[in-house]
């Protein structure tokens, strides 16, 4: 045998075991580091929420007020989650930051504004809600139109760029351009004014314990959570949903495996844009419809995506809910104008402590 080894050169088993010992130790180190940073990331978030509550208490904010804010935060969080899902999937599968994603939300909100009162005449409002049936009918129409716009952008801009082998930076810049384009079109068509879907007094409900919430907010919470749940079911149960997660995980391997990546990309845009539209419409129903609404919403969207791990759709859903809560609770003692700053701080903390997100995403 010894002769054999000589003739084959360095004994492979020796080199293998020597080279294996090091990665093994390294892996163990990486694992413990992984666990520690994950725990740190999770703890610092929990700490942040507890801190927010304490500061709130110290400032004399009542528990009821904090509870109300938490409920509203859940609502805002579910809307963020709807926007973040498309952003994270596009990043995972196509590897670029789609800066136009927020503006897809704006488009969705404006399409409802376009349909309600024109194609769909305003009927009786569904008391105690502020809106009528026509609003609920306009929602799927807005989803369809937004999906068509996203697919048009893919066909006209992103797909040709990718075929030319453009870098992710170029794609992101193209997306930034698309964002400006969409917003300009919104300004041209609808002007710079703020709009409300419905005017008049919005009725509120007092929950046991004195938490006050508008009826509209209840439907926003219900619809947003419903869609979040549907996305979850889609990703977890359907073949296409699993293929989307697989492709976001590892696009090259998806190709090698025989997954029809082109089809996955198509449906990723469709899902992402449809959910962005729902998010935009619900945001518009909660406050107003304005040309910059989606653009300003990008920050919490990115915060949610990074918090959940870039490219991890489940992470984006959970990250959205967390960011929404933190943002809303902070208004107990901070001027609400600082809400974006709160999202930004959470994003920076995560990037410093655990850049791959607390739910694990692409490590880079």
């Amino acid at each position: 045998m010894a002769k054999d080894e000589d003739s084959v050169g360095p004994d492979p088993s020796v080199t293998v075991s020597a080279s294996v010992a090091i990665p093994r130790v390294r892996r163990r180190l990486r694992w413990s580091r992984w666990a520690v940073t994950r725990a740190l990331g999770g703890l610092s978030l929990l700490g942040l929420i507890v801190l927010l509550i304490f500061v709130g208490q110290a400032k004399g904010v009542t528990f009821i007020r904090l509870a109300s804010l938490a409920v509203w935060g859940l609502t805002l969080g579910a809307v963020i989650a709807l926007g973040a899902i498309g952003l994270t999937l596009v990043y995972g599968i196509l590897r670029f930051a789609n800066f136009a994603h927020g503006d897809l939300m704006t488009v969705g909100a404006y399409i409802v504004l376009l349909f309600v009162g024109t194609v769909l005449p305003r009927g009786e409002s569904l008391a105690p809600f502020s809106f009528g049936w026509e609003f609920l009918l306009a929602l799927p129409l807005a989803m369809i139109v937004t999906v068509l716009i996203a697919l048009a952008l893919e066909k006209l801009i992103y797909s040709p760029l990718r075929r030319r082998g453009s870098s992710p930076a170029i794609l992101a810049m193209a997306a930034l351009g698309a964002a400006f384009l969409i917003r300009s079109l919104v300004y041209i068509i609808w002007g710079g004014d703020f709009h409300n879907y419905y005017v008049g007094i919005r009725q509120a409900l007092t929950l046991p314990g004195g938490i006050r919430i508008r009826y509209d907010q209840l439907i926003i919470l219900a619809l947003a959570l419903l869609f979040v749940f549907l996305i979850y079911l889609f990703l977890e149960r359907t073949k296409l949903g699993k293929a989307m997660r697989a492709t976001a995980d590892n696009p090259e391997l998806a190709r090698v495996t025989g997954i029809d990546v082109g089809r996955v990309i198509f449906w990723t845009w469709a899902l992402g844009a449809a959910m962005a539209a729902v998010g935009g419409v619900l945001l518009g129903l909660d406050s107003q419809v304005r040309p910059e609404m989606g653009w300003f919403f990008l920050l919490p969207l990115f915060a949610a995506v990074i918090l959940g791990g870039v490219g991890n759709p489940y992470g984006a859903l959970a990250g959205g809910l967390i960011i929404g809560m933190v943002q809303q609770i902070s208004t107990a003692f901070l001027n609400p104008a600082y809400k974006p700053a709160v999202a930004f701080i959470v994003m920076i903390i995560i990037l410093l402590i655990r850049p791959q997100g607390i739910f694990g995403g692409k490590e880079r």
Partner: protein
Amino acid sequence: MSLLKVEEVTSGYGEMEILHGVSIEVHKGEIVSIIGPNGAGKSTLMKTIFGLLRPTQGRVLFREQEVTGLPPNELVRHGLCYVPQVDNVFPSLTVQENLEMGAFIEEDPKAIASRMAGVYELFPLLRERRRQRVGKMSGGERQMVAIGRALMLNPQLLMLDEPSAALAPKLAEMIFAKIKEINSTGVSLLIVEQNAKESLKLADRGYVLADGRKKLEGPGPKLLTDPEVGRLYLGG
């Protein structure tokens, strides 16, 4: 019968030519091993066969049909499956989901179920861990998932790029035993390995690649004792 025939293939990355006219062949039922020092062009050859790189010259024939430069999602339909050396699993998916993705182009749920049962029979550990996310599994377990995934399409030819890389000797031995077992079910295998000794012991035939050229070929056991192999390996 010749299952895979690579004729005078020249290929590389962009301007950089790595393979300079390499020809190899895999017959039905064979295990064929490609060995060679680092940078010999072994992985480049695999990627070129599997349509991840386009050859600038030469042809690839699979079952007497030209498949040169066909994209991977076409090749898997011809019965050719490939396990890359690194990043060969979907880490955020469970074991079972990884296997399901392996059978993405298969529409018949019965076929999928029976193949999955076959993979679990080959790797019983995977059945136990089928709900676990692969990202949390060890290197050896990941390799099982990767091979299992590639078997989900019932390939005629399975291409493995360094299946024992970064595995402890015991695990590498286990993977080699499984390769033999897969071969006994009628699947032909084309394997690229740095672990020359083990892979030549296993192989019906072997090729030695160096500097992007085929240097030697012959039956596995014969290459194992060829002094020329050692010389090439040491880069002499």
